[in-house]
């Protein structure tokens, strides 16, 4: 594919932040490719560098090195030329709390010289027509998110970037946002949606990229990348610690989740039950579950956990690979 078949291309993108303990890498030689059209899921645990990448694309933060293109234009240098085609919500919607929804949109519309009536159109499209005259301060989280989407639509963008748009929303709100993203993509626009929750993106995305610790781990169509990796078996057992050892010795990937064990990479519950039974461990729960991003990471990297404070060894007793970055994810 040529450059222009991608809405977003980054090459060797890198960003470090200066912290109390020296420089800290947020994004590390990231090669991201978002094809034109469809919904692209941008997946990674908290602190993996999703927001930082999006901020760099939008010229909000400065990359240390690397190149970025949006619709073939170099950013941030040519951002003024391409920004009119890009609508973005970074982290949470940010508007003037004491202004009405309409005033907030009106100021943005004037800044880009949007045609008259555009504000009404986008308020209507996002179901905020009735509430446009209310102060932003009084909006529910869902309404704030809708106003942010309305703002991105002022530009009639070809590319929409939504950074964890469902954070804090109730199921109805999540459903609504998903529908909106699907509809935007069906209209022929490109949607980039970041999330740390696999299930959220899996259902709506056509293609995905998965990052961990600022690095690209996998990318491609959803079916290829996530496919059948998303099954695991939940095991309830009286002695979880001993059970973990037994299963790990047998070569399975095991995580402890509260009182339960999560076994990845083994889709036959019977084998687990047999392994434990022959070791005198009695299973009180054995359920195949759909699991989240963690097990995908697990398979992609062989790391047993994503947390920063994990201890223990990886299967086979080999030194474990570094865990994926959830550390310092205070934002």
């Amino acid at each position, binding site marked *: 594919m040529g450059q222009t078949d991608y809405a977003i291309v980054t090459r060797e993108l890198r960003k470090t932040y200066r912290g109390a303990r020296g420089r800290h890498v947020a994004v590390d030689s990231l090669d991201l490719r978002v094809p034109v059209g469809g919904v692209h899921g941008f997946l990674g645990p908290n602190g993996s560098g999703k927001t930082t990448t999006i901020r760099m694309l939008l*010229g909000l933060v400065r990359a240390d090195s690397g190149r970025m293109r949006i619709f073939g234009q170099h950013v941030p240098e040519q951002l003024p030329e391409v920004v009119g085609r890009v609508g973005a919500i970074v982290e949470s919607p940010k508007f003037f709390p*004491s*202004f009405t929804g309409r005033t907030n949109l009106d100021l943005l519309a*004037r*800044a880009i010289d949007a045609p008259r009536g555009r504000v009404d159109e986008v308020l209507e499209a996002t179901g905020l027509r009735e509430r446009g005259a209310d102060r932003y301060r009084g909006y529910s989280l869902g309404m704030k998110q809708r106003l942010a989407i309305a703002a991105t639509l002022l530009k009639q963008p070809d590319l929409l970037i939504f950074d964890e748009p469902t954070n804090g929303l109730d199921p109805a709100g999540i459903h609504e946002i998903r529908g909106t993203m699907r509809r935007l993509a069906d209209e022929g626009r490109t949607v980039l949606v970041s999330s740390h929750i696999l299930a959220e993106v899996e259902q709506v995305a056509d293609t995905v990229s998965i990052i961990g610790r600022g690095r690209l781990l996998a990318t491609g169509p959803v079916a290829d990348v996530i496919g059948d990796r998303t099954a695991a078996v939940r095991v309830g057992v009286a002695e979880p610690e001993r059970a973990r050892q037994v299963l790990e010795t047998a070569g399975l990937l095991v995580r402890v989740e509260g009182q339960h064990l999560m076994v990845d990479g083994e889709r036959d519950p019977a084998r687990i039950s047999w392994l434990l039974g022959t070791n005198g461990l009695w299973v009180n729960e054995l359920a195949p579950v759909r699991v989240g991003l963690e097990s995908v990471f697990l398979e992609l990297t062989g790391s047993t956990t994503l947390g920063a404070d994990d201890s223990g060894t990886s299967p086979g007793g080999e030194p474990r690979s570094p865990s994926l970055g959830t550390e310092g994810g205070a934002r």
Partner: protein
Amino acid sequence: MRLLGVELRRLAARRLIVLVLLGGLAATVLIVVGAWFSAQPPTEAQLAEAQTMYEQELEYWEQNGEQMVTDCLESEEVDSELEGEDVDYGCDQMAPQLEWFLPYSPPLEEVFTSNLTTMAFLPVMLMLIIGVTVTAAELSTGTMSTWLTFVPRRTRVVLSKITASALVAVPLTALIMALVVGGLYGVYAFHGTTGTISVGLWTEVVWIALRTIALGAVTAAVGSALGVLLRHTAVALGLVFVWSVVVEQILRGTAPGLQPYLLSMNLIAWVQGGTSYWINECRDSADGVLCEGIERTLSMGAASIYLGVGTVVVLLLATLVFRRRDVG
């Protein structure tokens, strides 16, 4: 240009402007009420009391006045010889006057020249607050990042915000100054004590007001630049307060020679059209170190250069920093 228009609109929609204006009006009312009390003509009782005291004093004067004047002139002569130059003890103004015994009420002329420059700092401080919040509020709430996804040209963004706050400062400062001058005049007119105010004095008042308006605009611009640099309204205002009220007052006491380089002195010199300050000049002499106070002037021209250069530096710095900075 379009951006400037949007920024002006944004300012017009902000309640802060209304709050600041209300604060300005409240302070103006206080100033005028204060002037009303001090300009009040003496009451009957005060007059009667003053009259009695004056008569007593007059009686004493009639008996001893001649002797007192003679003594005064004598010591004037002796001291003049000692000092080597003429001294004036005001011996010809020793006869008691009725007004000595009445509460002092400053004539409007004096209020218009000296008090007005102090009052001019009220709108200037308010403009600083407006200027700072224009940018700091956007940076600390994050609305700046939304804005930049619409308008990525950072230089234009920052300059439009700075210019907008300077522009709104003009009518706001003018309004407050007009209310203060009008209010003061009204008080004296009410008491019938305006006296005759020369065209020259009116011209002076108008110039003070115009210079205050200019200072208000510049202060708002500098405030916006400080908001960009420091990102939080409270931090920026705190810094200005600590600098001008604490640091400069200490410097004034410990290093009087620095006075012409103090921000506060230059602000006063600008509004007043020049000011003066005292420094001690000491030299060795036969009887040890001899010090004398010398009055120096700080001209309006010098102050305008000082303030102009300072403004340009702050605005430039803010623009450069904003161009490079990561916006959260």
